[in-house]
């Protein structure tokens, strides 16, 4: 008798275990994502995740999506495209999530979006801006970020207006930095400026001294980097050591993050960059989000956090519009959506590419980063030219 009891007990536990996923799925909506928690993109990936997690919390406080609780499943893609692709395969086939958020960085997104496309699963991409992603005729990848090609336009225009002619261009050999570089080359050609030096470097590069020697020899007026955080910081540090001078230093990603200023201290002064978003922008809910984020994580949110948060809102708006989590309906809703949330406007063209959101240029001034271009969003005036190292 006793053994029979324990057997039935065991069976019921097993039954419960098997049944529980189905049970929870009925009253929960599972959203899946992978972000870089380790590796080169870890810092920015974490911020994106934190922003997204804040949306999950808030949407659940508001009563969830379609009356169901939102549950986030996330993994670490180690900043590697191949790992990201595997994880999205797992999210879709194994975890059977109902909604997808893209990973951080263009190269991981390139890989992950191929998986989403294979399963015909719409994916809202928060942390990717390389136009290559939307040039493949995919129907399931929806971008939030202003495109990489446009990143440096305002800064190059500024250089042109100051009479600068020679640009040195360096960039990492992955999708997003190459996208930035393509944009720089296009804009320089448009304005009749000359690219006097161009070189790619690997994802693991930490030593830019050889490049800097060559840029110095070319006497460039502007140094533009298609970079992420570690390389832009490393480059500026070594630029100072080698006394490389240019009238404008501008980098993608790095200068848009608080860490850039922390790591470089006074050497960050005057360096320009881009931002997808700043807490100071006049957008609905941006200020509240920034304050809440700061209390929670102890520092101001960068645009990656804003993007994660915004991606949540876009997903929410799309699901509400669709009235279900059905893939086809959500996809149609995302194509039709034109909305403004705390991160900015979301409107995509027929390829899913973001066309509603403008670009902003930032500059480090007095230990803080300010939007300096375009003027209507600026919180400070552009400081020009870059102060030479020996005059600091």
């Amino acid at each position, binding site marked *: 008798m006793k053994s029979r009891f324990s057997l039935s007990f065991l069976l019921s536990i097993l039954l419960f275990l098997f049944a529980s996923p189905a049970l929870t799925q009925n009253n929960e909506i599972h959203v899946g994502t992978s972000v870089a928690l380790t590796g080169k993109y*870890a*810092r920015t990936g974490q911020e994106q995740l934190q922003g997204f997690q804040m949306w999950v919390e808030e949407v659940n406080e508001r009563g969830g999506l379609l009356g169901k609780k939102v549950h986030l499943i996330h993994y670490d893609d180690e900043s590697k495209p191949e790992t990201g692709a595997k994880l999205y395969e797992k999210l879709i086939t194994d975890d059977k999530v109902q909604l997808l958020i893209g990973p951080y960085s263009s190269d991981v997104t390139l890989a992950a979006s191929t998986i989403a496309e294979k399963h015909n699963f719409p994916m809202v991409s928060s942390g990717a801006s390389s136009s290559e992603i939307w040039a493949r005729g995919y129907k399931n990848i929806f971008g939030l970020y202003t495109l990489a090609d446009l990143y440096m336009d305002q800064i190059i225009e500024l250089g042109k207006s100051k009479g600068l002619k020679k640009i040195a261009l360096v960039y990492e*050999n992955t999708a997003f930095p190459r996208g930035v570089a393509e944009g720089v080359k296009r804009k320089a050609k448009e304005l009749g400026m000359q690219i006097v030096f161009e070189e790619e470097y690997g994802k693991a590069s930490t030593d830019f001294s*050889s490049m800097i*020697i060559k840029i110095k020899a*070319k006497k460039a007026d502007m140094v533009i980097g298609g970079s992420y955080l570690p390389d832009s*910081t490393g480059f500026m540090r070594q630029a*100072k*050591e080698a*006394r490389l001078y240019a009238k404008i230093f501008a980098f993608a990603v790095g200068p848009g993050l608080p860490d850039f200023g922390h790591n470089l201290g006074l050497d960050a002064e005057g360096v320009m960059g881009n931002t997808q978003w700043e807490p100071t922008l006049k957008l609905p809910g941006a200020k509240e989000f920034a304050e809440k984020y700061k209390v929670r994580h102890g520092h101001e949110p960068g645009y990656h956090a804003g993007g994660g948060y915004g991606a949540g809102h876009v997903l929410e708006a799309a699901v509400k519009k669709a009235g279900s989590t059905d893939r086809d309906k959500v996809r149609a809703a995302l194509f039709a959506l034109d909305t403004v949330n705390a991160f900015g406007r979301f409107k995509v063209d027929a390829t899913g590419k973001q066309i509603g959101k403008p670009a902003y240029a930032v500059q480090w001034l007095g230990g803080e980063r300010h939007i300096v271009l375009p003027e209507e969003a600026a919180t400070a005036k552009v400081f020009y030219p870059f102060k030479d190292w020996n005059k600091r």
Partner: protein
Amino acid sequence: MELLEPEILLQMLINGLLAGALYALLAGGLNLIFGVMRVINIAHAEFMLIGAFGAYVLFNVFGLHPLFSLLIIVPIIFVVGYYFQRVLIERVVDRPMLTSLLATYGVSIILINVGLLIFSSDFKSVPVLQGSFLIGDLAVSKPRAVAGLVSLVLSVGVYLFLDRTRLGKAVRAVSEHAQVAQICGIDVRQIRMLTFGMAAAMAGAAGVMLSIIYSFWPGSGVDFIQKCFAIIIIGGMGNFVGALYGGILLGVVESFVGGFISTQWAEAVAYLLLVTVLLVRPTGLKGVARA
């Protein structure tokens, strides 16, 4: 072509020598361990990062300059390495190579993840000694100059220790033939502990130097350990002096390839050199063929 101007060539040479000195210090320790106990310490770069994070902590908590923290960190890591050898490495000495490879690989994974738990995956750096010494048109980066010189002094110090002292002679004897050394009355176990402690301390010192040059995070070791493997094969497996030559050679060639071709190519140089050396002189620059 403006690259062929003498000051630019000189600049590249100096950059390369300074980077090479750091490689040499790191690879020297790795090779010492291999020479004495036939163990390839995959966790070697993680010992380096312990040094780097040690410098980071001492700088941020006590405001200690990395050059001073060198005096604290190096002895500590020596002691850690000394007993670490006794507790773990000694058990895998004389076992098949795969056993020690797996053991040290395991240690490396554990150390990386402990590092991630404590320090997260953010890139850290120690902002001291920024800027450069200007000698005419030549700009020599202060942190690199200091790191390069300190590395060189330490490597030469270890060399002199090995070459001139009785204890150093014992280390070389064990490296040459452990059993004969034992018969001659050398405490081989003790020597192995000492060697590992010394090698770990060298890696730690390299880490402190690294902290003032580059940004680093707990996973930074991979790039360095791969280069070190190449260096010790180029220099000759188990030969301390070979590793010094190999390290400096790699630093200089990387710098010139970065200058004349591109930084992307510079990252592949270690392996191209490796293949070249293996083709021309399979035992490495200073290696001797072993049965």
